[in-house]
């Protein structure tokens, strides 16, 4: 199995000819572009894994409201703990990301593109602005792109202001519009009622880059890698207790063990797949696959070494969610604080078995009753740590 290390081995993105995807798209009809993306089985790389072709189809069919335009938004909020592959992509392959956004604009009929960049990445902005300026000079943005009469599209960068929840697409749109980043009820979905109430496609940075590769090389090429439900390659950001942390490109469906062998993390006790909102996979389950249908991730892989305290891991994640919950709905606002309190009780060795059961029931309620993905997934790590490491975390002595 080929797992490429971005520091030493070329990635697919290095070998795809610049602008070959856009050139192919401009020679196709709109429906055919979307058809090709649909046929590739590309699913969103930001975490939720929604089929990209389906999303574009809905946005293409949606009607623009009076005087407005459709939008293409690139989600570069990359806030999931342990994820940094979008930063590397934007630094090394910004052209390809913008090329992918331009293809999306052509496919759905959008006139304006926005890259929502997390404020933590502000140092990337001068580079991104320079790439955009050059693309305008080269007529890859602006009016009559690539010589195609009437195809007008431009992209600007909009900075985030430090809020993990703004990676959620409706919160992101609220933030773009100048409001607090509080997620909206869905439906309506952004493809119908997005930025300024107009049809809007929101995709992850990496998703746009794969769009370019697919149009350049064909849906069949993409689908030939991965599993039936998880086509293609995925960028993985690997950190934690391993010898070679960094960004890797791997075929979806690889096992946790295969990845650990590649990154020098063989002795691990557990691996957190999918960041703080993902699941904790114990060593006994390292045969599990990294794929949408099994251990799913937007790119975050955190290796947890044999000497780590799993309760400290749970505490770190719960503190993260208490800090980052937008506070709009009670299950998430109160629930995360309660779970953190529970972790503290466990640390003090004061948590009864009955109380632990109550915490697990609360976690289930949060998953079911929270308004957005943050509250629906914030208890995943806690629940999986309790499930797999119950013996380690219970009955602690006070002095621990």
């Amino acid at each position, binding site marked *: 199995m080929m797992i490429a290390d*971005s*520091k030493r081995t070329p990635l697919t993105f290095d070998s795809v000819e610049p602008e070959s995807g856009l050139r192919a798209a401009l020679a196709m009809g709109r429906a055919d572009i979307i058809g090709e993306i649909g046929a590739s089985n590309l699913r969103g790389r930001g975490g939720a894994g929604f089929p990209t072709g389906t999303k574009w189809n809905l946005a293409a069919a949606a009607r623009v409201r009076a005087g407005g335009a459709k939008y293409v938004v690139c989600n570069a909020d*990359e*806030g*999931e*703990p*342990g*994820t*940094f592959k*979008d*930063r*590397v992509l934007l*630094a*090394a392959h910004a052209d390809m990301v913008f090329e992918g956004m331009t293809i999306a604009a052509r496919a759905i009929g959008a006139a304006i593109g926005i890259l929502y960049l*997390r*404020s*933590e*990445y*502000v*140092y*990337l902005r*001068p*580079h991104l602005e320079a790439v955009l300026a050059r693309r305008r000079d080269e007529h890859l943005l602006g009016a009559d792109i690539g010589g195609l009469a009437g195809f007008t599209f431009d992209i600007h960068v*909009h*900075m*985030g*202001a*430090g*809020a*993990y929840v703004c990676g959620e697409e409706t919160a992101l749109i609220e*933030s*773009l*519009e*100048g*409001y*607090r*980043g509080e997620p909206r009820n869905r439906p309506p979905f952004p493809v119908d009622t997005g930025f*300024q109430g107009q049809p809007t496609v929101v995709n992850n940075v990496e998703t746009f880059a794969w769009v370019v590769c697919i149009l350049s090389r064909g849906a069949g090429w993409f689908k030939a890698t991965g599993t039936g439900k998880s086509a293609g390659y995925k960028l993985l*950001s*690997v*950190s*934690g*207790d391993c010898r070679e*942390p*960094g*960004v890797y490109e791997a075929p979806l469906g690889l096992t946790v063990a295969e990845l650990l062998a590649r990154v020098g993390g063989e002795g691990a006790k557990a691996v*957190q797949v999918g960041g*703080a909102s993902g699941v904790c996979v114990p060593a006994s389950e390292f045969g599990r696959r990294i794929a949408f249908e099994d251990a799913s991730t937007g790119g975050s892989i*955190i290796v947890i*070494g044999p000497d*780590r305290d799993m309760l*400290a*891991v749970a505490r*770190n*994640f719960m*503190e*993260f969610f208490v*800090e*980052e919950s*937008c506070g709009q709905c009670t299950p998430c606002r109160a629930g995360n604080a309660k779970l953190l309190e529970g972790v503290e009780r466990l640390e003090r060795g004061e948590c009864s078995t009955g109380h632990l059961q109550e915490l697990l029931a609360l976690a289930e309620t949060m998953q079911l009753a929270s308004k957005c993905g943050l509250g629906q997934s914030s208890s995943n790590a806690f629940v999986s740590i309790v499930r797999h490491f119950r013996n380690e975390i219970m009955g602690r002595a006070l002095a621990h």
Partner: protein
Amino acid sequence: MLVGQQQRLQDDIREIVAQLGRDRSALIPVLQELQKRHATVSDFAMQVVADELGLHPAEVYGVTSFYAFLRQPAQGRFVFRLCRTLSCEFEGKSRVARQLENDLGIGFGQATPDGRFGLEWASCLGLCDQGPALLVNERVYTRVTPERVHEIIDECRRTFGAHARQAGHSQVEGGLS
């Protein structure tokens, strides 16, 4: 605040708004630019921004208080944001935190009395393979050790003044330097 200072701030805000627009969607960019120039978004500044954009001041306050990078209780010329998320914890962020507190003489969520330095926790900075990670204004420091803290603070002291807010050379691997 002195009347002259207030007038200057007001003029500055008008200039920023003239540049970025009066749409609601300009609100956050306006606040960000304001903060960049003045290191802080004061109650008075929020009032002026509200007037300029035709909003209720409570709306502006609501937005400012929502975002970690605008809220910033520790408002200083140089805001140190140390990542406290798991991978940086594994790499020893607690010892870096302690040294920052010792060398700056303040705790997290505080600013030095001279208004030069603020100290804040940050959620994952997206540099997890190079932790502990530290963001100082628009500059990034990776693999920070307690020993290096002093040097980083010194670097800020040296650049204090006209160029203080300019993005420095960040040392990100696999990123841009």
